[in-house]
């Protein structure tokens, strides 16, 4: 296990190209253990692509990605699988298996990766359902019988099934009403603290950024700029200024000052 101050994810010199278009050019990023890091950027700056590349769903066109101190593309299939078990992913629309109930969805990672007794798994499933704030009845329901917010929670329960160390979230609050989004933010903050998670999320929700992130990574000009919200707000870059000091950002700051 790497020492605690070592970054849990280290991206070095990442290059991503689509045809002739370069999306990431020599991009570096460190994620520290136990932090909540948000990835932001305009459309087409490759936030989701970066996330998919870190997850190994897309081959990088150049550069290296290290997770838990191991370089991903140097690993055998077996080693890669055992590393993948140490992270959970919440996809944008939940990506719950529609032919399975919520409980069966959460059971999938247990069935594939562990040999626990059926009874213990059932208890753990109930526990995860409770952990993400779903009522216990939700376990027997199919995803199509759930509201958008409940689907996200169910998908989060599945992502948390194997007690991952890193949680990846792709636009966790997109499509939720402000109240549900706020609840979801609190849930993630709460889980991150009690389960000691490292969280990497793509988000556009300024409220989320202000409420729960430790640091923000802005994708700009094919590179990345990382800092806390107040550090970034002091930067002169026009996109960052517009992002944080535009009408939405200003409203948020006003609300925060008032609070």
């Amino acid at each position, binding site marked *: 296990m790497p020492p605690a101050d070592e970054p849990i994810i280290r991206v070095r010199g990442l290059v991503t190209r689509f045809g002739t278009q370069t999306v990431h050019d020599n991009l570096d990023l460190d994620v520290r253990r136990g932090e909540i890091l948000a990835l932001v950027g305009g459309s087409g700056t490759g936030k989701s692509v970066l996330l998919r590349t870190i997850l190994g769903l897309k081959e990088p066109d150049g550069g290296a990605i290290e997770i838990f101190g191991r370089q991903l593309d140097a690993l055998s299939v077996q080693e890669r699988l055992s590393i993948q078990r140490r992270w959970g992913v919440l996809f944008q629309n939940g990506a719950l298996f*529609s032919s399975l*109930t919520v409980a069966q969805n959460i059971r999938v990672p247990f069935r594939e990766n562990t040999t*626990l*007794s059926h009874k*213990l798994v059932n208890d*753990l499933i109930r526990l995860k359902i409770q952990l993400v704030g779903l009522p216990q009845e939700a*376990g027997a329901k199919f995803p199509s019988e759930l509201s958008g917010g409940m689907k996200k929670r169910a998908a989060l329960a599945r992502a948390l099934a194997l007690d991952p160390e890193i949680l990846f979230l792709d636009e966790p609050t997109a499509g939720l009403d402000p109240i549900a989004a706020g609840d979801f933010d609190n849930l993630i903050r709460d889980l991150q603290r*009690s389960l*000691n998670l490292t969280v990497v999320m793509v988000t556009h929700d300024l409220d989320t950024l202000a409420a729960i992130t430790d640091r923000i990574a802005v994708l700009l000009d094919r590179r990345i700029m990382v800092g806390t919200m107040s550090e970034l707000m002091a930067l002169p870059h026009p996109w960052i200024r517009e992002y944080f000091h535009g009408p939405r950002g200003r409203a948020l700051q006003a609300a925060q000052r008032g609070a």
Partner: protein
Amino acid sequence: MSRDGHVAVVDIGGEWTLPHAGRLERIVADVERTAAPSARIHLDKLQSLDTVGAWLLQRLIRRLENHGAAITVADVSPEHQVLLQRMVLPPARQTLSRPYVSALHALVERIGRSSIDIVDEAHELVSFLGVTTIALLRAVLQPRRLRFIALASHVERVGLNALPIVGLLSFLIGVVLAYQGADQLRAFGAEIYSVNLLGVSVLREIGVLLTAILVAGRSGSAFTAEIGTMKVNEEIDAMKTLGLDIMDVLVLPRLLAVVIALPLLTFFADLAALVGGAIMSFVVLGISLAQFLEQLQSFVNQSTFWVGFIKAPFFAVLIGLVGCYEGLKVAGGAESVGRMTTKAVVESIFLVIVADAAFSIMFSWLGY
């Protein structure tokens, strides 16, 4: 585990995490059996704890307490404490599975449901035919409504692009029929009549039926998948709010395209099958092309061809109608598109064969 007077001292240490869960379960069971009326649990040697470990610990504590033991937990680090506190489930366990239904009950229910579904489906399909007919009449009265570019592109996809596969398969069927016929008739010294057999079966039945089944599988399914995907993407809703008529924009061009393309493909298939048969007759029976044509002409007349050909537009209507109808019935997500596509293919092939049987009966009545 050790003893301190009456008090059992349980030392918990090491990694209480998912990879070790099997072993932990056994340890917990041991402790549960042997713990004294009171126990003190020490957690100072605990290195790591996740939800599995925390759940097992919490369960142990609760069960011991339920047996009347007095439990104290000592040396808990703050972050382990947070996790342990969350590991509480309500005592009444909600079942995780769907309510149980007996197999017989489920069987009866399924038979009932599908019977009702079939009747509903037939009813809706007939009303869809009605709606389409009205749209078609409207388009005839106002030809501007018809999308000629869409129509042409669909004719290309349904007809032109299907030429190779329809031609090849018909050719092969012609080869097979000629060979099988010759093989049987040779016993009677009547090989020459295999030409008659080929001509009649290809022109009356096989050419049009084979083409219709291929088009149902190739284009009927495509209609359902295309329209269904548009439905899932809310494109259909967008069209409606923009004042576009779904029947004019989506259904009529596809339906008319099959009605135009299927007869043409049928003609092509008939030719290909006869060519295949002629080649096979020459190879196996030594019947020259001239002999083949003469034999064919002496037995097969125009009405043989028309009896088969006239069925093509009717089959086309069935295929186009079912394909579009099932596409519009897609609801929900991608898996519904797949289900409806399968249904459209099965249904349209079924209807084509039923219609073919009906035509046979009708023609034998009429004396053709």
